């Protein structure tokens, strides 16, 4: 299993500003995943972050809006840039160590006003 610490757990931000979400894992993992969960919706994958290379973004998500860092095998950050109310959502990081299932952080509940 893997234990994931994600912070902040929630934040209320002004439109036009940026928020960086941190994700710390208690073991080394090759890939980390960032998801968005809009109110009442399921999880949508934003991007996959590999250590030492640029993140791979899913359709509809771009690096300028959601820059990701992956400085080592236990840590990643996701920044939500130039926020608008439409970015209000829960953001989740996840890891899936080889041979095991996917584990999630507790999520960051973001409200943009």
């Amino acid at each position, binding site marked *: 299993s893997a234990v994931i610490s*994600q912070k902040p757990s929630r934040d209320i931000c002004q439109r036009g500003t940026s928020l960086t979400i941190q994700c710390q894992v208690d073991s080394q993992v090759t*890939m980390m*995943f960032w998801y968005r969960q809009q109110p*009442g*919706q*399921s*999880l949508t*994958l934003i991007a*996959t972050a590999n250590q030492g290379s640029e993140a791979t973004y899913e359709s509809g998500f771009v690096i300028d809006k959601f820059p990701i860092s992956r400085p080592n095998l236990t840590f990643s950050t996701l920044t939500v840039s130039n926020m608008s109310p439409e970015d209000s959502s829960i953001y*989740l990081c*996840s890891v*899936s160590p*080889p041979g095991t*299932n*996917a*584990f*999630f*952080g*507790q*999520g960051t*509940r973001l409200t943009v006003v």
Partner: protein
Amino acid sequence: QKEVEQDPGPLSVPEGAIVSLNCTYSNSAFQYFMWYRQYSRKGPELLMYTYSSGNKEDGRFTAQVDKSSKYISLFIRDSQPSDSATYLCAARDNNAGNMLTFGGGTRLMVKP
């Protein structure tokens, strides 16, 4: 068409009832199937997983996969109010990395 489809509910049942939660999927390459439970304001937590077709039982929970019909089920026996949550099914093609494809989630309410 989404690769994994799930009835959003809400599904409301009395305490003690048997609950059946279901998903269908379209990608034949999916081999690994999972059920996650998500309480309000929390991240998803893994409940059960199965590999290929068959049943898997864990306490009051039974996960079932029928690959011939591309159908995934989760049964909850003797449901409790504490089972009230959103249940997400997910599938993975192990030959395509570790990315999961999620259903939309079913909100379950168990009334005392």
